[in-house]
């Protein structure tokens, strides 16, 4: 089914691409400045707010937006819905890019990145208390796993080169990959389950600095479900956007039937969140909690809205409607995570944080880099489904 995927071709240096290049160039300058002058002068970070948008957005939110690969793989390989298979490759690619960007962002964010190589190697120093250790190790391995999962597309393409030795090597690697791929795929399901939940565990250690509406032992579960929500949202978003941008057939029918799963996951999140708030009696904390009660209701509404939108059977296949629902899912999860790490975090009186312009430039530049890489890869390698979609749609449903 996958080899229905084709490279898109066409020129790479289009006008939008050059704009992205410019944004990235500016960001690269800011990054150089950050390594020269230290983190303080470039960012709004402080001893009270040591984690800002580089962590809350690029890592905690970015990797969850990059969970499309995880979400779709769960559906295809575990729930055995083979008809969604054409969504796997582009989703895995976006995941690989998203996680790689998060890794780059971490290299900018940590103060002593040159010590980072010790983390996977100095096993005897591992602190098993540290959820961050697990997150770091899992994310590092997962970046590798994702690129291995992307690589068949590359080798498939190389099998068509006129150069015989390359062709031979590519076909050997393809065969080897096919043998071990089951275990790679399983690893690709295990690792996000581990680190996406542990990203939530991270905040448990901050104890009372995190507002009681967000601080709960259920953080790992809520983080896990929210990454699946965001993953599905991202798949819908990316699929519809790339069919519009590259003028390709839409996968509306497939996405439409995916909505049932999305609705279930959304209600799962809402159920867990509401039960937790009730069980802990956290509702009582809303009066007198300034804007936090309002923030919580916005969050809940943003999870509820796409769930209700996708309940309607007729409108599910309307691309515009689907696109809006997908966007809302991404935003809902993003807001929940952003709040949990940053907005609802309060180290005490006298501290405040707002990202500086250079800080935002770095984040923006890394996003630009991600989009550029996506464009180059789908234009060069067979990632997106080919022009004749009728067959795949009729697939095994």
């Amino acid at each position, binding site marked *: 089914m*996958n080899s229905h995927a084709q490279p898109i071709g066409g020129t790479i240096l289009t006008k939008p691409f050059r704009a992205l290049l410019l944004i990235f160039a500016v960001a690269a300058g800011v990054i150089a400045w950050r390594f020269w002058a230290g983190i303080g002068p470039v960012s709004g970070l402080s001893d009270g707010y040591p984690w800002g948008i580089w962590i809350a957005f690029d890592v905690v939110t970015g990797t969850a937006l990059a969970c499309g690969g995880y979400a779709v793989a769960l559906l295809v*390989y575990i729930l055995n819905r*083979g008809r969604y298979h054409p969504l796997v490759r582009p989703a895995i690619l976006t995941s690989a890019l998203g996680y790689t960007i998060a890794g780059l962002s971490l290299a900018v964010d940590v*103060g002593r990145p040159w010590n980072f190589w010790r983390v996977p190697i*100095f096993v005897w*120093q591992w*602190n098993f208390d540290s959820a961050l250790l697990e997150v770091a190790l899992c994310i590092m391995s997962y970046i590798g796993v994702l690129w291995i999962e992307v690589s068949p597309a590359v080798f498939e393409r190389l099998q068509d080169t006129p150069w015989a030795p390359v062709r031979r090597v590519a076909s050997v690697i393809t065969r080897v990959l096919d043998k071990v791929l089951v275990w790679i*795929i399983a690893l690709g399901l295990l690792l996000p389950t581990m680190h996406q939940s542990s990203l939530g565990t991270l905040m448990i*250690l901050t104890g009372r600095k995190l507002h009681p509406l967000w601080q709960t032992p259920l953080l790992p579960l809520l983080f896990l479900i929210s990454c699946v929500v965001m993953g599905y949202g991202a798949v819908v978003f990316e699929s519809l956007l790339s069919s519009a941008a590259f003028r390709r057939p839409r996968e509306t029918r497939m996405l439409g039937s995916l909505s049932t799963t999305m609705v279930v996951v959304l209600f799962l999140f809402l159920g867990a969140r509401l039960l937790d708030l009730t069980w802990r009696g956290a509702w009582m904390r809303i009066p007198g909690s300034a804007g936090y009660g309002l923030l919580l209701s916005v969050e809940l509404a943003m999870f509820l809205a796409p769930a209700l939108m996708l309940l309607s059977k007729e409108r599910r296949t309307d691309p515009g409607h689907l696109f809006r629902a997908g966007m809302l899912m991404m935003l809902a999860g993003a807001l929940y995570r952003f709040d949990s790490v940053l907005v609802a975090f309060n180290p005490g009186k006298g501290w405040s944080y707002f990202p500086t312009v250079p800080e935002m430039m770095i984040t923006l530049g890394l996003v630009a880099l991600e989009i550029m890489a996506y464009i180059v890869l789908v234009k060069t390698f067979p990632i997106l489904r080919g022009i004749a979609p009728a067959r795949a749609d009729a697939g095994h449903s």
Partner: protein
Amino acid sequence: MAVDRRSILKALAGSAVAAAATSGRALAAVERKKVPAEAVGLLYDATRCIGCKACVVACREANDLPADPGPFQDRIYQAPIDLNDRTKNIIKLYKDADTVSYMKVQCMHCVDPACASACMLGALSKDKLGIVSWDGSRCVGCRYCQMACPFNIPKFEWRARNPKIVKCELCRHLLAKGGIPACAKACPREAVLFGKRVELLADAKRRIADHPGRYVPKVYGESDAGGTQVLYLSAVPFEKLGLPDLGDAPVPEAARLIQHGVYKGFIAPAALYAILGTVVFRNRRQALAEETPAGDAAGTRESLP
């Protein structure tokens, strides 16, 4: 043949139960950390402190910290307003309508420190005396210790190219030479005492008993957040001095129960991996069989993700 969805869900549910069971066992297994036998610490008696800040200056000298004129950059004297990357110890003033109190702030040297629990490679760790200190060779600069510390103690060198984490290490370099922490040595009023934690705690309780009405009848740090090795006596409620009411459970406990529960012996993740692998394998074989009955090379190639 087909693995139906029910059997998969059953398998997944089974592994969830197994994980829950292991975590239940771990709950029992994670014991509260005990105060180290040779634990040393400080006792700060806010009612004896006259705010002379001799300890602030002595700390700076003993630890080779650069001068910190605080927000008054044109002044030549030391005037930091809070702990920072150049100030490991500070005296603050609390004042309201009818009370005035000084407050000394430095690392609490928790019995079960959140910073050490957070740290990936154990760059922050407790030694034999219970002193929490920083080892730069193990530090990545992630600042999770700052996120975790309930007292906001570890500070980061925001302006440095090779930044360090800066915090009070109870002058361990002086202790190694048979000395005592500079702040305790400098105090002219015995408001800052250095000693074994057991003795300091006994002393603090004696003071409360000997002077009824003088103190809030509690030694902060005896059991707060699982206990700290720096202890406080005060006439003013501790919360007003900036010592939060953290309860008696160590701050890292909640996260530790989850981490050690789910990941105990790596059994749950390994089991989940085995299940996922098996399910993926069977599902893919089935999908292949449906697609290309012959299962030829072309079919194999097509099945790649």
